[in-house]
């Protein structure tokens, strides 16, 4: 590992799903933080900087009253579904700049049941947009999937295959929320939410927390013989011509994506290519999103997804395992924590401690990707 590199010294998380009403998002965050510190063999007194993210469950820096009032800087971030990975990116920058040596990164959320609600004014719209019945996130997922499948000659059945794989991985993950397997046919025939998406093709808002301890390469060498390295972490916002949620209009030929920019920059910084990736975690808010993100991140060509799925390539036993812990579909989404759940899973795979879902062949290069409203993406490359 190079001098100036950043090591992942510890990981911790609570199970995702539904918890007791009096177990707050903040309290989940404290538990995940303590688990990550224990995994690193460190105490809160060793932490000289912290970054936390939550979308709806309060200010992450309030956790210091439980973790310890040590006076360190604690930055709060709030970037939708990309929150956890943006927090990680911010923390890595603090280490690379020399400002910090050992950083806690924390993400948590406790969402109410049901689809995410949103207010038109929060997204720059007048009330007319909501009054017209257009302020619905799942509409967007469905319309983006419809457009993508048609544009690239993919059958709707790929959506059922992606979701079936997610629940198969969830069934093998003791910490997953959805642990019941469904066949692709059962998923295709399930209740339609927004066609072509059925109820099992959309992730649900959930509860949970995840935490990561980052440290400098020098410090990591004192902690372990074989550290896991955060080789690169990058965030991007949308460019002109990107098809995003709550867009009342698009320019002709809209095909830009913040995912393309974030992935490209992350691979370039890490000095690896998509072909080098042994295990990947991609934002799968819905089954269509996993299909789209496979190509937008560079892991395959547009339209190649069907042959990869037919070959079982994206299963844990395949050549390009994707969302090995069940992803958002099987874990649900506590928005602030999702990006760090992905990192948690990749680190376990690279350490060889992923239990019954451990992929074969001593994986060395992991990739994570989150994407969210109003058009943001963040990626990491993690190596060992």
């Amino acid at each position, binding site marked *: 590992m190079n001098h100036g590199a950043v090591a992942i010294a510890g990981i911790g998380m609570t199970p995702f799903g539904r918890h007791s009403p009096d177990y707050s998002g903040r309290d989940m965050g404290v538990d995940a933080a303590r688990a990550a510190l224990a995994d690193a063999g460190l105490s809160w007194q060793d932490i000289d900087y912290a970054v936390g993210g939550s979308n709806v469950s309060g200010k992450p820096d309030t956790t210091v009253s439980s973790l310890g009032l040590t006076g360190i800087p604690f930055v709060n971030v709030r970037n939708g579904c990309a929150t956890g990975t943006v927090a990680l990116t911010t923390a890595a920058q603090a280490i690379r700049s020399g400002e910090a040596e050992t950083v806690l990164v924390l993400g948590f959320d406790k969402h109410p049941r049901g689809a995410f609600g949103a207010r038109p004014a929060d997204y720059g719209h*007048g009330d*007319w947009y909501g*009054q017209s*019945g257009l302020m619905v996130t799942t509409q967007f997922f469905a*319309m983006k999937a419809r457009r993508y499948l048609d544009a690239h000659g993919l059958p709707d059945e790929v959506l059922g295959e992606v979701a079936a794989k997610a629940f198969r991985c969830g069934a093998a993950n003791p910490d997953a929320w959805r642990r019941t397997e469904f066949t692709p046919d059962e998923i295709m025939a399930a209740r339609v939410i927004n066609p072509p998406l059925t109820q099992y093709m959309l992730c649900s808002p959930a509860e949970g927390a995840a935490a990561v301890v980052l440290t400098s390469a020098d410090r990591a060498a004192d902690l372990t013989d074989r550290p896991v390295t955060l080789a690169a972490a990058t965030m991007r916002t949308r460019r002109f011509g990107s098809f995003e949620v709550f*867009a009342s*209009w698009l320019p*002709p030929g*809209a095909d830009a994506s913040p995912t393309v920019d974030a992935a490209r920059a992350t691979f370039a910084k890490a000095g690896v290519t998509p072909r080098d990736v042994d295990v990947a975690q991609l934002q799968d808010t819905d089954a269509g999103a996993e299909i789209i993100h496979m190509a937008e991140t560079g892991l395959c060509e547009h339209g190649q997804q069907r042959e990869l799925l037919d070959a079982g390539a994206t299963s844990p036993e395949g050549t390009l395992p994707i969302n090995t812990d069940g992803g958002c579909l099987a874990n649900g989404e506590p928005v602030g924590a999702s990006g760090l759940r992905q990192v948690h899973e990749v680190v376990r795979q690279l350490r060889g401690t992923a239990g019954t879902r451990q992929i074969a062949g001593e994986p060395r290069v992991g990739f994570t990707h989150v994407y969210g409203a109003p058009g943001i993406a963040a990626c990491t490359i993690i190596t060992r």
Partner: protein
Amino acid sequence: MSSPAPPIDANVIASLDPIRLAGARCAECGTTTFPAQADCPRCARRTMNRIELPAEGVLWTWTTQTFQPKAPYAAPSTGFEPFPVGYVDLGDVIVEARLEADPEALRVGTRMRLVPLTLLVDGGQPVIGYAFAPATGGSA
């Protein structure tokens, strides 16, 4: 059908008879937005001129809203019924819209025409919004 109901938003509806959508086009780079807005999202200048958008286009993507959206959407007094929504390519801009159509008959490329759509706002007051319907079988 004539209605005394007002347009849902003056930045959205340019005229009611015939119904036309309001947009804005950048005098510098030609970018067209819907609804009208003051700043160009492409070249970042404040050189947008208000225009009426074309009333016909082709379907770009679509889905059906099967469950009742949260407020500020209000269901009709007769109860919520699923409705299709989509994006319609008007040439210089692709606009998001309610669709008045049988979802089974919709395809990417279906020719669509702008029509008025009565919606309800707070307290059940009717307003005139917009939708697109298949362009066959009617006059433009």
